[in-house]
């Protein structure tokens, strides 16, 4: 080994000793600076000193921030070889004297690049995020269906409605083996697919379900893919239960089959236990066709209903439901899928209770007590057929949906000295076709959309006896009122647009035309004046719009900025053609509706979001009729006004802080909504509590400020999470009350606290409490103060791995003039037979046999104390097993 060839980078004491002993060698310090031809300092350049171009390295250095370097050389040689290299520059080789000196190295830029060594690999171009979770790792012994497992996967939460969220955002698609069988109605699979048949759950983050949009439009949402163990899977779940009292039953049968080309899921469900079956066919799909044409019946006529309690339906819903649903998917060729989803629902519900309503007017208060008993008969058929082709080159989707309802309801209201019967029939039919085509033309992606729809609603409400003696029957009592309303609508919306990506920007302009024609006919029957023209309507309403929408998105490379700017411009042409010698109404307007959303990550712990938007809303046909309509037994309503114009400004600012190290999280937000409207709706309350509504033309405003704050802290030593949240909301608006203009102000404060604690391995406790106050002021005078509170306490016991006991207590309290309190207690025990895989569950709901739920709420000018009859104390035994 030749010592002269080895020179350490740093001078250590050891080496110094050696150097001192070898006096023949001399040390020189060569320092200097590396620059490019433009005199710019180059940092990170590599400098090497050798004896000559072939020998070993004597010393080396890397230039610092200012391009400076310093080299210490121990060599007897007279001259040295200095090599300086830097990425993107030609390597400089020079011979220098071996002595202390300053060297200025100037490098010339070079287009020569480093020689590439290409990696032989299969997935280098892969992009997109997938997280895959093995079901076995999350599945517990008592988990039956895939929803039970999904709940445990980090980031996933399932809302009470069944909607799945990932990291707080609803998921976009729910695939089974890559096929979207159920569209948005994924609850059917999620709550019935046997967890044992599933091998993996894949979460596709930032998933763009439309292939041609891939890399053009960034998707924030995640999708789920359920991977099955076998190529052909025949599975399903069944549940049978029975209890008392009255006699209770609960049946649920859901067989399903999955193959590579064909998938089918069938379900039949029936119960009278208060379980809401319609929940299973709820559609959570993202509407690709942001259409204004709805397939739901928005009825003008209604029964006087009670407000449903906000807790679990199994505590209060008196039902008798049957649901059948058939879902079928066939992959016709490589990329073409045909889907059919047909559901039929039959339900018979009973609603009983009472309402005490106090109306405030500037001069007086009116009290009204109503004891209500309503029966609802629901019959609905909902078929949907979809044809979809999704390839890299083209996305095509055509969806034909139909709805048919044969709903009727019957209600009886008993008041202090009379009894009113209501009978409502509301058959409804609707059909809608959605077409979407996305195809690249040149470098742009062109999109065509078309929505065509037709709906027909026939409503008939009979009220016995008639309630509006003065208006309808010259002051005398009359036997009955029969109100008929027929509403038909034709709707078409066609548009073309394209999406273009430009670096970090993406641009998507769209041009479209929308046409809508609604016919509203109404007639009142019963009473001397009922055939008078003022109780009739025959209205043709046209709402057309030509629009140019544009959306610009920006996302910075490091994702700290996320920006979306929408600039929607439209020309609206609205016309209402009246009959019965009433004046026609017209409105033409050019409308600009901008929208801005910004998300900025300030640092690792701080994030802020900002939203600002302006939008308009014009003329709703259900607020244009001149002739009176009896919308419910005590509301006779007309709108003697022009076409309504609403302008809405919306601002929101949010700030988030999360410190994972301290397990401390805070978020706060402020929002402001400013509404301007050209019509003021007035209520005139008659002595028997009936109200007459009319609209007057005068500009009026409403403003809402909201402040929200949430905190969360985890205490490691106590195994406890504490969460706090608070909210303050202030609303101001103007309202005409018995022909006097009043300023109404609502203030609400609420605070919540929740504690989640694992006391021991076999016991965990959960507490949730909220307290809220509502104050109402009319013309700065406080007229109402309401306090509501709710407290939940849940205890979970795990005596063994296959057993589980849950005891819960609930308290709801309300106070206005007097205090009302509602207590509930429930118990649930589940035992799992490990060999057979059968779950036996025993639940005892409403142990205290609380017979009714009381609630108080207030609107701008009234407050209501409502009592809802609950299901009695009952015991249910059920068996759950896999097919």
């Amino acid at each position, binding site marked *: 080994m030749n010592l002269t060839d*080895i020179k*350490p*980078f740093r001078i250590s004491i050891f080496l110094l000793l050696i150097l001192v002993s070898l006096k023949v060698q001399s040390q020189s310090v060569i320092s200097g600076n590396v620059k490019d031809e433009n005199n710019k300092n180059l*940092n990170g350049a*590599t400098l090497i000193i050798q004896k000559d171009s072939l020998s070993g*390295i004597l010393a*080396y250095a*890397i*230039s*610092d*921030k200012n391009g400076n370097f310093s080299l210490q050389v121990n060599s007897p040689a007279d001259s040295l070889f200095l090599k300086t290299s*830097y990425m*993107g520059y030609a390597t400089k080789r020079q011979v220098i004297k071996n002595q202390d000196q300053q060297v200025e190295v100037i490098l010339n830029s070079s287009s020569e690049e480093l*020689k*590439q*060594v290409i*990696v032989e690999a299969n*997935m280098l171009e*892969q*992009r*997109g*995020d*997938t*997280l895959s979770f093995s079901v076995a*790792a*999350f*599945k*517990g012994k008592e988990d039956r269906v895939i929803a039970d497992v999904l*709940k*445990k996967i980090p*980031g996933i*939460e399932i809302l009470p409605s069944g909607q799945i969220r990932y990291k*707080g*955002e609803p998921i976009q698609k729910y695939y089974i083996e*890559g096929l979207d069988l159920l569209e948005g109605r994924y609850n059917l699979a999620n709550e019935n697919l046997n967890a044992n048949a599933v091998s993996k759950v*894949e979460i596709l983050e930032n*998933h*763009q379900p439309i*292939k041609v949009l*891939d890399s053009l439009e*960034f*998707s924030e949402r995640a999708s789920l893919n359920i991977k099955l163990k076998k190529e052909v899977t025949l599975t399903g779940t069944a549940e049978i239960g029975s209890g008392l009292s009255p006699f209770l039953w609960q049946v649920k049968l859901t067989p399903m089959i999955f193959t590579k080309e064909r998938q089918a899921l069938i379900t039949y469900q029936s119960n009278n236990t208060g379980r809401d079956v319609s929940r299973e066919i709820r559609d959570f799909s993202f509407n690709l066709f942001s259409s204004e044409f709805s397939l739901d019946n928005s009825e003008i006529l209604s029964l006087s209903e009670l407000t449903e309690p906000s807790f679990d339906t199994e505590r209060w819903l008196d039902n008798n439901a049957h649901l059948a649903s058939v879902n079928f998917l066939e992959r016709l060729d490589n990329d073409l899928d045909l889907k059919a989803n047909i559901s039929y629902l039959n339900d018979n519900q009973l609603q009983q209770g009472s309402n005490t309503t106090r109306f405030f007017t500037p001069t007086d208060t009116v009290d009204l007590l109503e004891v209500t008993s309503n029966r609802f008969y629901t019959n609905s058929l909902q078929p949907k057929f979809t044809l979809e082709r999704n390839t*890299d080159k083209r996305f095509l989707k055509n969806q034909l949906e139909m709805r048919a309802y044969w709903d009727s309801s019957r209600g009886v209201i008993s008041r202090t000295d009379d009894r009113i019967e209501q009978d409502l029939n509301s058959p409804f039919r609707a059909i809608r076709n959605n077409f979407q085509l996305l195809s690249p033309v040149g470098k742009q992606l062109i999109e065509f959309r078309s929505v065509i729809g037709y709906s027909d609603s026939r409503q008939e409400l009979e009220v016995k006896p008639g309630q509006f003696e003065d208006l309808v029957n010259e002051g005398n009592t009359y036997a009955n009122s029969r109100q008929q309303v027929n509403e038909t609508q034709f709707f078409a919306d066609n548009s073309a647009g394209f999406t273009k990506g430009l670096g970090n920007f993406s641009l998507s302009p769209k041009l479209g035309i929308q046409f809508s024609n609604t016919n509203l006919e109404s007639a009142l029957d019963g009473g001397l004046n009922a055939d008078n023209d003022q109780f009739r309507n025959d209205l043709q309403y046209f709402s057309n719009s030509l629009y140019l929408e544009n959306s610009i998105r920006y996302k910075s490379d*490091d994702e*700290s900025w996320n920006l979306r700017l929408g600039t929607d411009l439209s020309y609206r042409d609205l016309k209402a053609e009246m009959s019965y010698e009433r004046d026609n109404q017209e409105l033409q307007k050019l409308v600009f509706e901008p929208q801005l959303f910004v998300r900025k990550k*300030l*640092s*690792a712990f701080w994030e*802020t979001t900002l939203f600002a938007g302006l939008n308009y809303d014009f003329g709703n046909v259900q607020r244009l009729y001149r002739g009176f309509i009896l919308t419910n037994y005590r509301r006779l309503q007309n709108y003697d006004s022009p076409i309504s114009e609403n302008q809405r400004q919306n601002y929101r600012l*949010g700030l*988030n802080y*999360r410190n994972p*190290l301290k397990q401390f*999280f805070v*978020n706060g937000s402020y929002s402001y909504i400013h509404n301007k409207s050209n019509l003021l709706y007035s209520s005139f309350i008659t002595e028997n509590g009936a109200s007459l509504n009319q609209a007057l033309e005068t500009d009026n405003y409403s403003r809402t400020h909201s402040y929200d704050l*949430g905190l*969360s802290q985890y205490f490691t030593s106590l195994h406890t999470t504490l969460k706090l949240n608070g909210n303050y909301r202030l609303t101001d608006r103007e309202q005409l009350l018995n022909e006097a203009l009043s300023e109404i102000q609502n203030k609400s404060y609420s605070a919540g606290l929740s504690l989640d604690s694992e006391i021991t391995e076999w016991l965990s406790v959960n507490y949730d409490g909220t307290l809220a106050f509502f104050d109402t002021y009319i013309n700065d005078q406080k007229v109402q103060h309401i306090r509501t509170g709710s407290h939940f306490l849940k205890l*979970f016991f*795990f005596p063994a*791995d296959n057993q589980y006991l849950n005891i819960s207590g609930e308290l709801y309290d309300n106070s206005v003039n007097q205090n009302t309190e509602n207590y509930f207690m429930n118990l649930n025990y589940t035992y799992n037979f490990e060999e057979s895989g059968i779950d036996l569950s025993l639940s005892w709901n409403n142990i205290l046999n609380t017979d009714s739920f009381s609630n108080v709420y207030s609107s701008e000018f009234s407050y209501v104390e409502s009592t809802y009859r609950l299901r009695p104390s009952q015991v249910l035994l059920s068996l759950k097993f896999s097919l």
Partner: protein
Amino acid sequence: MTKHFLLISLLFIYFFPTYSQENKLEYRITYELRYQPDSTDSGKIRTEPMWLFAGSQASLFLSKGQALKDSLSSSANIAMLGTEHWKQKASATKSAFSFRIFKDVSENKIYHGEKIFQDKLFYTEPKGQISWNILPESQEIFGYSAQKASTSFAGRDYTAWFTTEIPIPDGPYKFSGLPGLILKLEDSEQEYVFSFVGLEKLYEPMQLNIPPADYQEADKVEIFELKQRFEEDPIKYVNNYVGPGGKRITIKADRSQKKNLKDRREADKNQNPIELK
């Protein structure tokens, strides 16, 4: 008045300056890492591809799986779901190594980043921990002439082979500062061996802030405690989470599931970390 206050606070928030330097990384160097997850079982060897994104002044080193998980700019393709190719893609984001090493070459600074669930944290390595001895031996690797060097770091002794023909004074993990790219790095027990397998110019240079802009600096011990807490009970960790827009996430799991998860994590755990002390 409130309007003005809002406007001012907004401006303040949106134009809050960030003190980090932006660098362009033009090259991607691929290493294959062969490692022994259990120091007592030399028969159990795993491999994982690692990427070094290098520029003239800065670099980022991380496992390929982590890098793929990060690439948010685009998304997956539906038709591929359920296919063999898809399975490969899904497994490609799996990684046993969660670190991201940010290096500022000319300043000789090293930042160790960790992403725990959604939380991004880093700590700064003390300066001058790795000092090299250049040794006379040389050999040819991938057609480059490579010279030997040695060092010790965090309880292991390493041998490196670097080439002055590639003027990138960088290398795998926290190793850099030699006058050329490290082509091979191995510890004396052969428990961690990084081998150069490729060098490619990126089609679009990658932007990198050093120190990492969206990472929060924290204490090394704190970070690893937090990471351990997440690995032991991810459900509890996520339950404390407040998501975008302040949305709360709550996941319920009972004892047996947690135990299940814990067992699996335990089994997957790397018992033989690269840094022994």
